[in-house]
């Protein structure tokens, strides 16, 4: 047995809790705001036990008012604190859209006030949440200059990116995928570490087709890669990890190597992250493409509730397999 397997494995959600706990212990400016995060420990129990450990003025239960408490977090951040706001579900972030895009995102550009703020947003489907508890709203914010956006896919990235977000001097939207919360585990380093914002990660190296993705879809892509390897198609899985600023260097290097691209995401297709990356590749990597740029993403509908509908809506391993086979003939 190696020492790695002796160390305790943690889930994706535990990694998030650990990051918050360690940053709050390291830096007394860090505090939490959100609905039901205190005595209840949060809808998903990310902050269980935090109230007792850090007290009610560092683990603040707020009224049900996303715009109000995001605005308040912006004010506290400008006064020198490091607020971390929890959206109970990412879907509710729409209530705070104005504060995020007009106040947090523009303050530094307009008049030089830094807003070191983190908003954690549990996003994504596959949990039968229906139209208001399954959304992937990152696309709305992807278009707003002044925000950073991250979306980890593993416990290591979840912990490292949250720590980096808390230490960043800008507003960072942290999209944590709730389907992954208790489904994946990893052994994490004992020592303090961060995952730098703005760096993608090659989760699987391959030579034939680049699958560029993030969040829960990374795991789908890895599953598809295993199946396809038996058929002689070698996928490279690029996990963006950060959506803004995009790591163009890593994306372009992968595409230049494989010459074929699948853009995979759980947000609906039109105007999504995939559309932007597709345009970038057409502009900057046209000469090295050997096939059409393929997007695999849900249809332009709300996320439906009923099991067959949601299954239809979400991208599947078989979609990636079919897409890869289509590209392989070029």
């Amino acid at each position, binding site marked *: 047995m190696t020492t790695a397997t002796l160390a305790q494995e943690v889930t994706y959600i535990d990694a998030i809790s650990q990051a918050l706990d360690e940053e709050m212990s390291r830096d007394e400016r860090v505090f939490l705001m959100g609905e039901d995060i205190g005595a209840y420990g949060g809808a998903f129990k990310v902050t269980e036990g935090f109230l007792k450990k850090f007290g009610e003025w560092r683990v603040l239960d707020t009224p049900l*008012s996303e715009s109000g408490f995001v*605005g308040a977090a912006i004010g506290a951040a400008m006064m*020198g604190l490091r607020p971390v706001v929890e959206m109970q579900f990412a879907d509710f972030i729409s209530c705070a859209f104005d504060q995020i895009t*007009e106040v947090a995102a523009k303050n*530094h550009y307009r008049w030089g006030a830094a807003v070191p703020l983190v908003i954690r947003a549990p996003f994504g489907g596959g949990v039968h949440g229906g139209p208001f508890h399954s959304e992937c709203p990152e696309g709305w914010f992807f278009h707003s200059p002044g925000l950073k956006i991250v979306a980890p896919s593993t416990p290591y990235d979840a912990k490292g990116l949250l720590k980096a977000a808390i230490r960043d*001097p800008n507003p960072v939207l942290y999209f944590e995928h709730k389907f992954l919360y208790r489904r994946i585990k990893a052994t994490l380093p004992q020592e303090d570490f961060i995952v730098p914002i703005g760096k993608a990660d090659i989760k699987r190296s391959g030579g034939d087709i680049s699958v560029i993705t993030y969040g829960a879809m990374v795991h789908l892509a890895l599953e598809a890669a295993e199946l396809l390897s038996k058929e002689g198609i070698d996928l490279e899985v690029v996990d963006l990890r950060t959506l803004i600023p995009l790591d163009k260097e890593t994306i372009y290097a992968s595409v230049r190597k494989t010459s074929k691209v699948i853009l995979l995401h759980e947000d609906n297709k039109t105007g999504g992250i995939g559309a932007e990356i597709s345009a970038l590749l057409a502009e900057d990597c046209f000469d090295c493409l050997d096939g059409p740029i393929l997007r695999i993403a849900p249809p332009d509908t709300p996320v439906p509730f009923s099991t067959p509908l949601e299954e239809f809506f979400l991208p599947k391993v078989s979609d990636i397999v079919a897409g890869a086979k289509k590209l392989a003939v070029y």
Partner: protein
Amino acid sequence: MDQAVVAKDIKRSDLLEMYYYLRLTRSLEDRITALYRQGRIVGGVYTSHGMEAIAVGYASALNPDDVIAPFHRDMGAFLVRGFTPGEVIAQYLGKQGGPTKGKDGNVHMGDLKRGMIGFVSHLADNMPVAAGAALAFKIRKESRVAFAGTGDGGTSRGDFHEAMNLASVRKLPVVFFCTNNQYAYSTPLRYQMAITDVVERAKAYGMPGEIVDGNDVADVYLACRRAIAKARAGEGPTFLEFKTMRMHGHSEHDAAKYVPRELLNAWQCKDPIICAEQLLSRLGYGDESYFHEVLERTKKEVDIGMEFAEQSPLPEGRETLVGVFATDDEVSP
């Protein structure tokens, strides 16, 4: 305002200083309006003409380390906080010498070092932000207060209510105000809300509220001082409704024909500068020659500011790309 109360509760030097800032605000905004009419200023010009007593009064009642999230007709607060006429005119002209270096225009300026939170056009957006500043003061056990407001129209927005609620629930050291100047652009109060006094809104949040004569700088100052003292003592937020009248259009392009003439005439005799001069005369603090001297002094300061703004360069086009993200050294301590 009763002159005996003023004589007892406001220092003569403070009152004279407030009069100076009323005059400076008027002289500066008159110049800005003239520049707009000459076509030198593009975009909106939202003045505090006839409402100067509100910002001058509240800013004078605050400590220097308190934080202000102003309404967009609060030029006086910027001046009390040390923004110079030169910086302000440069801002309106989109020059490098303005606080936003051309990134934003008119009263959309801020500076955390001078405790001014930059105005956001989406009215009431900065009210939760100010509540958050107050939250930071409370968490750090600092003896500081946040002061934030909006217009009568802004109190219809959700952010106003969410801020009032949050501040009251957590007893935050913040004072909220509404500049009730009867019109939100062209919309009169009766189409904005089904109440006649905006202060009614405070009751729903268990927050004490007070109606204040917004054209009387002494009344504004004393009401703010009381509310600020309560906030500083840990007794929670207060809501102040400053009753006043918008004497110009929404912006200077707007002739405001929708406002009845007789309403403007009725308010004309309550002009805050005239009111302040009457008060100073009654108290024996100033006379016509003194008022004239202050007027000339402020006009001269605006002239000097104009020279500064004229000499300040326009930003280079490529400056557009600078400043989307902050660096570590720019975060507030």
